[in-house]
């Protein structure tokens, strides 16, 4: 009698819709990159243009700038869907909410973190990062930023029911971001000094695998509570 919707069709429809929305609001897409660029360019102003100092702090500065840029864009993850009722429709769909939430996190990561990662070689040049550390920086960001998005999504889902949750979101998310930052920036620091860096990257990868499984489930449960 009817075409029921399959899980793949639902995920495809959600991804298509969110990427379409991104394209329609593409003016906003560069904002995280510009924000990170501004934060990074503040450091030479504050510390003076000394290549040795800047090169030493570059891994940490780049990681913190990208982390904050991601945090600022996190609040929009479920906000508009909550306000216009799309989130209700996602919950009413005959599909696991965790999977749909996972799709939304994927879009968020692709739209905020990927442009930042693409701009990272420029950031590295601005801060005189050692050339041999750049590949490690890219690997650490490719493993670390999805982890940040996944952890952040759980916190956003918990706070989405509140009106002005921006500051609370940062207060809850930043402590959870600390381990990711330690291993992410740590691996680049080690590489810049010629030390072994694989261990930190492997820990990031392990964290990412765990968050990929658990974070969408937790975020979905939190969203159901937020809508009660």
């Amino acid at each position, binding site marked *: 009698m009817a075409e029921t919707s399959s899980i793949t*069709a639902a995920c495809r429809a959600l991804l298509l819709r969110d990427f379409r929305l991104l394209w329609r609001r593409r003016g906003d897409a560069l904002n995280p990159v510009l924000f990170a660029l501004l934060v990074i360019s503040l450091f030479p102003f504050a510390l003076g243009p000394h290549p040795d100092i800047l090169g030493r702090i570059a891994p940490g500065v780049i990681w913190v700038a990208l982390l904050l840029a991601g945090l600022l864009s996190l609040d929009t993850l479920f906000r508009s869907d909550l306000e216009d009722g799309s989130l209700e429709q996602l*919950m*009413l769909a005959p599909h696991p909410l965790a999977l749909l939430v996972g799709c939304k996190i994927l879009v968020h990561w692709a739209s905020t973190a990927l442009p930042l990662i693409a701009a990272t070689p420029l950031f590295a040049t601005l801060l005189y990062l050692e050339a041999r550390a750049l590949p490690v920086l890219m690997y650490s960001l490719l493993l670390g930023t999805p982890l940040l998005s996944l952890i952040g999504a759980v916190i956003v889902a918990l706070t989405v029911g509140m009106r002005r949750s921006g500051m609370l979101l940062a207060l809850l998310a930043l402590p959870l971001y600390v381990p990711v930052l330690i291993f992410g920036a740590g691996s680049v620091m080690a590489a810049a000094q010629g030390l072994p860096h694989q261990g930190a990257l492997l820990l990031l990868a392990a964290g990412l695998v765990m968050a990929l499984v658990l974070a969408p489930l937790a975020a979905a449960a939190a969203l159901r509570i937020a809508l009660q």
Partner: protein
Amino acid sequence: MKPQPPPPAGPPSLLRARGLAFDRNDQPIFGPLDFHVDAGEALLVHGSNGSGKTTLLRVLAGLLQPSRGQILVRDAPASAERIAQTCTLLGHLLGHKGELTACENLEFAQGLFGRRADIDIEQALFDVGLAGFEDAPARQFSAGQRKRLALARLLLVPAPLWLLDEPYANLDLPGIELVNRLIGQHLERGGAALVTSHGAYATGAVRTRTLYLESAREPVDG
């Protein structure tokens, strides 16, 4: 375990509530309610503002857990998936994206919920009087047109039971007639509808039963 009443003879009801009640912070919102909705009939839920109509619909749709009582879908205990396949909710929030066109909004609904075999997006838009607005962004729609777009979604998705929360709000007279006509056609196809209203309109010439929600929380099933 209390003994369950024997299942009634005849085809199973699409949706049946047994002693359904919902409390918020220990304050009763509605219930306990006993009612059922069969295929081919409309259940009109009347009640003043604050009598719990919207909450009732959200409980039936599975967005809220009932505090007491039971919901049966086709006389089997309702799981989230069975509810999702049987019910579709039209609430106060319509779930449109203003940046997307009418067609794109319906494509999303179709991907999420599936599609009835005898209708496509163009036909659904035509049926609700939005022909010619396929590629207009939903942002430019008036409140009434947005409601019509939401009605097009109901036509498109395969769920047989429509949970309609104040479907007449924001609609002009032809729009109200349209809602009644769509409900009538849906019931003829073997669907059912549960319609809340604060009492201004009737659903027209369809098999209708009425459930009165009173602020005193004393329901009358008639």
